[in-house]
């Protein structure tokens, strides 16, 4: 294998400093002595520079327009931080509806105990249920004694 062939193989893996021919390595010494291999190394470096130019070329951005577009998406986050009147009104309506349903269900309560099955009294079910922070809960007994709906809202 000639020195140029060895150099060519080394060029494929060389660090950038070596390609510039300043390194005191076998490759660096050869590049300083061989114009053709030095041109090859230069082509690789030029390729890197060109590629860097391609990837680093950034068209201008209109940050205000982007923020305006993002604002639509950000609104729910802002709303969550600072509840507004409309949201409170909707929460109140939902709470009232849930309360009404709960009252109706309590009034229509009847004994659905089954032989051999120990039923948990509804009052105890209410006390067992705790809503997460910022949520309310309604406990709704269905016609099916095995199914109780827990409505978090």
């Amino acid at each position, binding site marked *: 294998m000639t020195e140029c062939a060895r150099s*060519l193989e080394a060029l494929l*893996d060389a660090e950038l400093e070596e390609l510039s021919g300043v390194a005191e390595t076998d490759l660096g010494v050869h590049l300083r002595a061989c114009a053709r291999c030095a041109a*090859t190394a*230069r082509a*690789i470096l030029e390729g890197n520079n*060109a*590629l860097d130019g*391609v990837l680093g070329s950034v068209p201008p951005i209109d940050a205000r327009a982007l923020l305006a577009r993002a604002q639509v*998406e950000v609104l729910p986050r802002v709303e969550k931080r600072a509840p507004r009147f409309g949201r409170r009104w909707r929460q109140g309506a939902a709470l009232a509806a849930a309360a009404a349903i709960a009252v109706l269900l309590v009034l229509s309560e009847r004994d659905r105990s089954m032989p051999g099955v120990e039923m948990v009294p509804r009052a105890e079910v209410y006390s067992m249920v705790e809503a997460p922070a910022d949520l309310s809960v309604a406990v709704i007994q269905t016609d099916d004694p095995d199914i109780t709906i827990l409505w978090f809202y």
Partner: protein
Amino acid sequence: MSDHLPDITRDLVIRARDGDEVALRVLVEAAYPWVRRWALVHTGEPTEADDLTQDVLIQMIRKLDSYHGDARFGTWLYSVTRNAATDRFRRERRRARASKDPRAFMALVPESPEDPSRSVERSELRAILQTFFEELPERQREIFDLVELQGMGANDAADLLGIEPVSVRANLFKARRRLRARILEVWPEVAEDLS
């Protein structure tokens, strides 16, 4: 240890997160060039990169609440970009790109970087190089860009990508070898030596 993105301080991010409109705009403008470059590395196509960049910046604004300052912002933003690119590829097939004749490469290598008479040819050279670059696997592309082109250390690149430094070096080795071989194989004089 400094962040990977020197223009973006933790204080800037926290102020933007907490609702400072000016800080948010500054943050978007500072993050944009980084995200655009990463997006181009991942998509390989400028228009797609622009779309992806917009998506990522909007996600960045939306997700600022989830940034608690305990991780480097650059690492966090890179992961947002990478995930967005992955999601995008799941939805869309990569468009076929116009093939470029790599044999023209040698003729386009400038005699010296200062030679202004070859600016048009240089743009063609860039297009060909980009084609070669896009042939690399995604992981090799991102590592080649971070380490070889932007000069980031292997350890920092590993930190940014969430992988081991040894993996960065292995991928860099493969990317270098493959890209350089691709360049040299279209260089007629060198090709003679290779055969």
